[in-house]
């Protein structure tokens, strides 16, 4: 494996849901590489979403989660902090602005298309109207969404198609210029054409951003990711270059899963 800097490093990480008896994740060690796409694959219930949701600590919206180990995130100045140490609300907000998240179902806020993007920007402190306008237009153009929405910027975002909504949600996160973007099965609710559009979008993003994506779709993982992690029953079974993973995996279990023998 080439030597590439990690934006995030998950170390001996275990996670237990509130009131659950057994941990849902056990001793996970996983790097997330800078400016690359890391795919998380594995059968349903193996803990992919759980792991992803630990990376911006969205779990903490529901009290009683139990973490062990460390999740180290590289700061812009090169220093490294353990996000599991975060306790104050302000630090959570800062973390979530740096580690953006896109969900399985499109989640347009109940406001206009323009406001959907402006919302996070305002929270991040960009209040000037011209600055906002400029960033919003630029992000929509980058997302190849501009032509589709330029005449309806001030209409409710929920009027867009599912695929457009999902691209808007991605745009909304990209506009915040996060260090790491987390995607949890972003295309599983969409048609094949919208899926392709989003895959293209994600591929385009890796120039500037680091990305982790959960997917059930093997082809998708092999099409867009550089690294793949295979999880099974709360364990990380194998982490490898995507090319290697899909042609010559180290572990028998990985091979069985990829070739469709189970899962």
């Amino acid at each position: 494996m080439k030597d590439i800097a990690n934006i995030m490093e998950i170390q001996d990480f275990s996670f237990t849901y509130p009131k659950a008896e057994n941990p849902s994740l056990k001793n996970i060690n996983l790097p997330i590489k800078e400016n690359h796409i890391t795919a998380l694959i594995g059968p349903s219930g193996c803990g992919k979403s759980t792991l992803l949701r630990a990376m911006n600590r969205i779990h903490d919206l529901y009290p009683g989660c139990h973490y062990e180990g460390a999740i180290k995130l590289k700061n812009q100045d090169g220093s490294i902090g353990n996000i599991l140490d975060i306790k104050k609300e302000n630090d959570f907000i800062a973390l979530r602005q740096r580690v953006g998240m896109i969900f399985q179902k499109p989640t347009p806020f109940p406001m206009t298309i323009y406001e959907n993007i402006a919302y996070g920007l305002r929270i991040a402190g960009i209040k000037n109207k011209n600055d906002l306008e400029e960033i919003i237009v630029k992000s929509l153009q980058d997302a190849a969404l501009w032509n589709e929405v330029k005449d309806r910027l001030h209409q409710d975002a929920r009027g867009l198609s599912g695929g457009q909504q999902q691209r808007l949600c991605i745009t909304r996160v990209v506009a915040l210029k996060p260090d790491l973007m987390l995607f949890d099965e972003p295309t599983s609710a969409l048609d094949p054409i919208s899926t392709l559009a989003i895959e293209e979008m994600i591929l385009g993003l890796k120039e500037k951003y680091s990305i982790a994506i959960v997917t059930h779709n093997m082809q998708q993982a092999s099409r867009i990711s550089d690294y793949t992690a295979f999880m099974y029953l709360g364990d990380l079974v194998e982490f490898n270059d995507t090319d290697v993973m899909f042609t010559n995996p180290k572990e028998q279990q990985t091979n069985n899963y990829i070739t469709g023998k189970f899962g």
Partner: protein
Amino acid sequence: MEKIFARLSQVSASLVFVVLVSTLVTLYISAKPAIEEFGAKFLIDARWGVDVPIEPPSSDHKPAQQASQSSVSNAHLDNGTNAGDEDDGINVGDDDDGINVGGDGVVSNAPHKEVFGGAVAIVGTVFSTIIALLFAVPLAMGIAIFLSEIAAPAISKPVGIAIELLAAIPSIIYGMWGLFYFGPFIASIFGGHSVSLLVAGLVLGVMVIPFMAALSRDAINTTPDVLKEAAYAVGATKFEVIKDVVFPYAKAGIIGSIIISLGRALGETMAVAFVIGGVFEFAKSVTDPTNSIPVVLANNFSESSGLSLASLFYLSLILFVVSFIVIFTAKHYFLRRGK
């Protein structure tokens, strides 16, 4: 089978219109004598069951509004139903005889007729409802948000059940509570009378809070978790998520809950009858007693006949139309804007 079912549902649906239209028509027919006698002046005339000479010398006659007020208060004094009495809390049955039957106090040899006007009741209804909403909406929203977004399940479950129980209390109980405890309490804080427009509005508010809170909570609970998570994921605080995502998402349901409560407040009778005072006088301040349409209806039907009965029907027709217009416009205006 299929056809019978379709037919049956058609019949039940058309029943709604039949009831609506027939209510309106019967109200109109019963109110007709009063409508013909008083016309639209009924809406601004504050006199109720007051004898006036049929052909008054025009020089003596003051403009309608002022004249009516003074004559009403005179009538009260004559019958011994001034505001002082109501404080004792035995107003409900008492004032009717005094005020409406009308003739006994004012004796006159000249030819005279009884005049009825709905202004006091209309104004009282509108203002008690406004007070109720001003009081109830913020509190109910606070409760709804607390229950759905802030409180832990261990707290929100029992409190939620308590709220639903509150909503089930019959209104007469609120009335008694208002009369004997809440009214004197309010009077001790704000001064004035222990039965008043303010007390009526607040009791109405207390009554509709459980409805509003429970319905708004249900509406707020429909906000998908993942939508809230998405807002947190761009850095929003809890307050921002509630304000910018949860509220707009649940807007239609929240407005619906307010409209339902508004309808209930407009037509509420028993609780208000206990605490509004039931006098045909405008409240000069919110702590004065006054009257409301449903209370006038309930207090006077048994002793009314002829023109006074028709006047009551006229009032109920007004209540019907007002409720209908308020709810229709509120629904139309807010729900369309909500989209």
